[in-house]
């Protein structure tokens, strides 16, 4: 039987388009220091560290984790890096959870960090095309990357297949997700891009990759987020309520994505959802969850995830945003943090930030974005070609 695992501390840097005055290990240090302070522990007490850092090319450094480990003063303690595309932060939490649940350690630091905007194309005088290039080396290099595939296309292709199968989500429904998440970000002091926009602004914004416009995309961000995960023995000594990870679910779908039987569904999220609900004993997620932090890399991903996690029937995700269910004032607020669209997507840090957000919500420390009476939330991290990986968690209060 797995031991119980608590989130005792959380710290994050703000997410920004660029941290020009800090390197990746300096950002990591700021997040680790804040998480340790929140946990009331010193770095000497950390028994093991798990690092979520997605992309070596972004960092301009292969094996960046060993340098972070030294910089955090954790030399000679065990450490491990995980990298699973957009789901890197989620995978790091999953690994840290396993280290405590198994009985191996009692205090584990899970830290995600990413720099990307040092990547820069001197001819186009922009980071963006170079950042996208750094990501697309993760697509199948033999059959797919040579055709000009982009990260947006990797989400657009299943989105179009879903629209073909169900007639949804519509571009209007997708625009509403963008408006919501940009709006939610105003109440998150760490968010990169709070913005007051209308659905017309989204629909009129520059075409990126059909059906996505500029405002359907998440941000690319730099930042670091850290969690201190502890066993029940340590959690009991805490002087304030802690958050518990009561469910984990993980799945990896076919990454040669043309091999999938149904291109219109987020298979890995459906599978991870079943697993996480089974472990947390959740039967009716729509009723039993108080909020969710979903991986809105693109607006349609949030809507397809409503369906994958059983908030509604397949094909009906768009109606949840139409009916206001997932707004802050709705029954099941999604992405109180602002999500990847409003808060940002500092890839390795993202999943850690989402878990930290969930921990704040269930311990009622989320400030202005507090979901009233939040007891239980779902967190989802997805990554890889056409959402190959999903890591899902249930976070609960005392």
């Amino acid at each position, binding site marked *: 039987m797995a031991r119980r695992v608590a989130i005792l501390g959380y710290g994050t840097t703000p997410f920004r388009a660029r941290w020009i005055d800090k390197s990746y290990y300096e950002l990591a240090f700021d997040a680790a220091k804040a998480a340790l302070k929140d946990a009331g522990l010193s770095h000497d007490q950390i028994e093991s560290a798990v690092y979520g850092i997605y992309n070596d090319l972004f960092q301009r450094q292969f094996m960046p984790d060993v340098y972070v480990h030294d910089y955090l003063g954790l030399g000679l303690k065990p450490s491990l890096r995980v990298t699973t595309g957009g789901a890197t932060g989620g995978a790091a939490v999953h690994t840290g959870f396993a280290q405590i649940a198994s009985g191996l350690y009692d205090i584990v630091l899970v830290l995600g960090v990413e720099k990307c905007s040092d990547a*820069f194309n001197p001819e186009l005088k922009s980071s963006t*095309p*170079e950042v996208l*290039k750094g990501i697309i080396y993760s697509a199948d290099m033999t059959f797919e990357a040579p055709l000009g595939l982009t990260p947006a296309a990797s989400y657009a292709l299943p989105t179009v297949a879903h629209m073909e199968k169900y007639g949804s989500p519509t571009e209007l429904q997708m625009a509403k997700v963008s408006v919501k998440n940009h709006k939610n970000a105003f109440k998150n002091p760490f968010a990169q891009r709070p913005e007051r926009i209308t659905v017309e602004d989204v629909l009129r914004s520059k075409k990126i990759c059909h059906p996505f416009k500029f405002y359907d995309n998440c941000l690319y961000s730099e930042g670091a987020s850290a969690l201190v995960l502890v066993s029940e023995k340590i959690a009991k000594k805490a002087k304030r309520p802690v958050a518990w990870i009561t469910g984990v679910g993980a799945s990896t779908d076919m990454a040669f994505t043309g091999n*999938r039987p149904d291109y219109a569904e987020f298979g890995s999220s459906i599978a991870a959802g079943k697993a996480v609900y089974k472990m947390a004993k959740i039967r009716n997620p729509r009723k039993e969850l108080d909020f969710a932090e979903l991986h809105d890399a693109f607006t349609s991903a949030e809507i397809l995830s409503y369906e994958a996690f059983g908030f509604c029937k397949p094909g009906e995700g768009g109606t949840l945003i139409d009916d206001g269910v997932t707004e802050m004032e709705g029954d099941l607020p999604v992405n109180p943090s602002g999500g990847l669209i409003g808060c940002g997507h500092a890839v390795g840090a993202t999943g850690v930030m989402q878990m930290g957000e969930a921990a704040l919500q269930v311990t009622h420390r989320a400030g202005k974005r507090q979901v009233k009476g939040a007891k239980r939330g779902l967190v989802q991290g997805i990554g890889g070609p056409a959402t190959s990986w999903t890591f899902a968690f249930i976070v609960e209060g005392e």
Partner: protein
Amino acid sequence: MMARKKKEPRPDVVPFEIPDRIEMNYRYSYGGISPFFRAIKEEAKLLGSRCARCKKTYLPPRINCSQCYRPTKWVPLGNEGTVITCTTVYYATSRFFSKTPFVCAYIRVDGADTLLLQNIILDEVTQARPGIRVRALFRPERKGEMADFYFVPV
């Protein structure tokens, strides 16, 4: 939790940047699927691979059936197929920046069970959408790579 300062803090240091670049050269072997790329280059033909046991036909090909754990056999496939899903890319990576807009589509080539990603070059009347029929065209100069061919509406 870190308290965030009301205003964006000024950088503590005056940033000092240098241009830099990571480079790597390869002689990449296609391994077992070499015949697929050789057929593209030398014969302008598409080869799939079929499992002798479950008859699943792979395109992109595999020399092993991932369901049956048996070897597959090469089978010639035709040049026509159906678009399953597609998108138009308006903003691309550095290498493809000047080629936008272009279409990426998953195509089920007739006789294959899996989907192949390819570019579609459209005529002036056809829209890229799921369900349209397309035909592979091979470029006159071929290197043995995916960019050696593309699809056009039938």
